[in-house]
């Protein structure tokens, strides 16, 4: 790394993902690739703009994830994957590295931006995780406008579900089980935050919850250590407590962030048989984005001038 700028204490950075397991390059049309890239850029720059103006990492990850939730190309919010019975059930989590505060929701069907409800759970309830109808009751208490489940469903996801149920592979779409979105950020005050949102696996059993809303599995942030957001085969990430494992490896064993992410994906998860990807940002603003799948939709931007979007 080149010499640190003198104001390195005020370094800030954000990384985002739009899911691991990108379709094989040859099958991704140029038009669709442009759509993914445009969506990633909007989220990356939206989150970064807040950091630039002195906003918090918490605001930056919320904003980035919200943009990805609203974009039908990604498997979160509008355009999320469908359950076995053709509905959308959404999960999301957010964590503030300052005091290990966290909020999460699972299996919600009527909240336009689940990441905002997760944040409200963190800030306004005495709980961390609310699920299903109870989470939506809380949303009503907090004056969230609920939307019909139809709002989330797209023709493409319907086709994907039908193909999956017929046992066919779908070309030119994010693989069915993936496409989760997430963001991690470090702000100028040194605070870390992480956020993740997903529709889960296509054709999932109603009520299935993956790693995204599980604090420690798909989402974790601890000031002075790192912030992590995961995407991939959620069941394995839960069992490996993947996001927290990265933090524990950095904190307890003094591994570099890169080593910690690498070990979690390519040793621990690989040994269990689970694949996916992780994005992480360290307390020094270093960004790591790694995956064991063919690709991962991702982007990184920091105050040192780095700005990149990548898929493979």
């Amino acid at each position, binding site marked *: 790394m080149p010499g640190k700028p003198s104001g390195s204490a005020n370094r800030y950075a954000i990384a985002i993902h739009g899911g691991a397991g990108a379709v094989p390059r040859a099958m991704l049309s140029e038009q669709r690739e442009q759509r993914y890239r445009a969506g990633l850029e909007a989220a990356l720059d939206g989150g970064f703009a807040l950091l630039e103006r002195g906003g918090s990492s918490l605001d930056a990850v919320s904003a980035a994830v919200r943009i990805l939730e609203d974009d039908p190309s990604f498997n979160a919010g509008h355009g999320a994957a469908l359950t076995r019975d053709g509905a959308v059930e959404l999960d999301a989590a957010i*964590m503030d590295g300052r*005091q*290990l*505060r*966290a909020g999460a929701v*699972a299996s919600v069907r009527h909240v336009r931006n689940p990441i905002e409800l997760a944040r409200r759970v963190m800030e306004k*309830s*005495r*709980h*961390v*995780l*609310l*699920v*299903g*109808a*109870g*989470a*939506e*009751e*809380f949303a009503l208490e907090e004056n969230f406008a609920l939307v019909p489940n139809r709002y989330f469903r797209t023709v493409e996801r319907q086709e994907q579900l039908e193909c999956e149920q017929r046992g066919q592979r779908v070309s030119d779409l994010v693989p069915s089980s993936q496409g989760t979105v997430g963001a991690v950020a470090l702000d100028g005050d040194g605070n870390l935050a992480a956020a993740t949102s997903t529709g889960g696996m296509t054709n999932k059993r109603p009520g299935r919850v993956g790693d995204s809303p*599980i*604090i*420690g*599995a798909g989402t*974790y942030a601890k000031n002075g250590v790192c912030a992590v957001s995961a995407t991939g085969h959620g069941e394995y990430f*839960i*069992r490996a*407590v993947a996001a*927290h*494992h990265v933090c*524990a*490896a950095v904190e*307890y*064993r003094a591994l570099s962030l890169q080593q910690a992410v690498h070990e979690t994906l390519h040793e621990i998860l690989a040994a269990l048989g689970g694949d996916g990807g992780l994005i992480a940002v360290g307390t020094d603003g270093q960004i790591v984005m790694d995956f064991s799948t063919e690709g991962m939709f991702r982007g990184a931007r920091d105050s040192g001038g780095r700005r990149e979007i990548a898929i493979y």
Partner: protein
Amino acid sequence: MVLVPRGYFRTEARVRELDEARQTEALQLKAAAPAATGTVGAVALDRAGHLAAATSTGGLTNKHRGRVGDSPIVGAGTYADDASCAVSGTGQGEFFIRQVVAYDVCALLQYRHLTLAQAVREVIHEKLRASGGEGGVIAVDRSGNIAMDFNSVGMFRGARDSRGRRDIAMYRDAR
């Protein structure tokens, strides 16, 4: 699976508790009131050297509908790894989730090479207490050491092993 009506889980005492809780708004703030806890769990090491953990709960009395605590969260209220230990937690679930308590005990054992008792002590009496969380864990390691520790007034617990240990305790004095 045979389903049972909701009434099956209700007892007079719990219904009375709920009524009381509803009447006393203040109780909402005391998530760790004795009435609100009482999660159950078990950890074990078998002859083949495999570790396992299990936890079950009805959650907090007067909880918000849909609230999920640490018990069903792998890593928070329940964790087992043959390479380190098996842990089951009870207490203020929100704090256990945020600290990933059960997994953290295993990580301290495996990566910091603390003893089971030290790892449990650090998590319960230092980290959890510092964050304001109350509760306890039971844990067993690969060698069959059992640790049962808590920062609350008491924890209903029992331990038994192949060397003849067998004890039941509720408060701190009864080891």
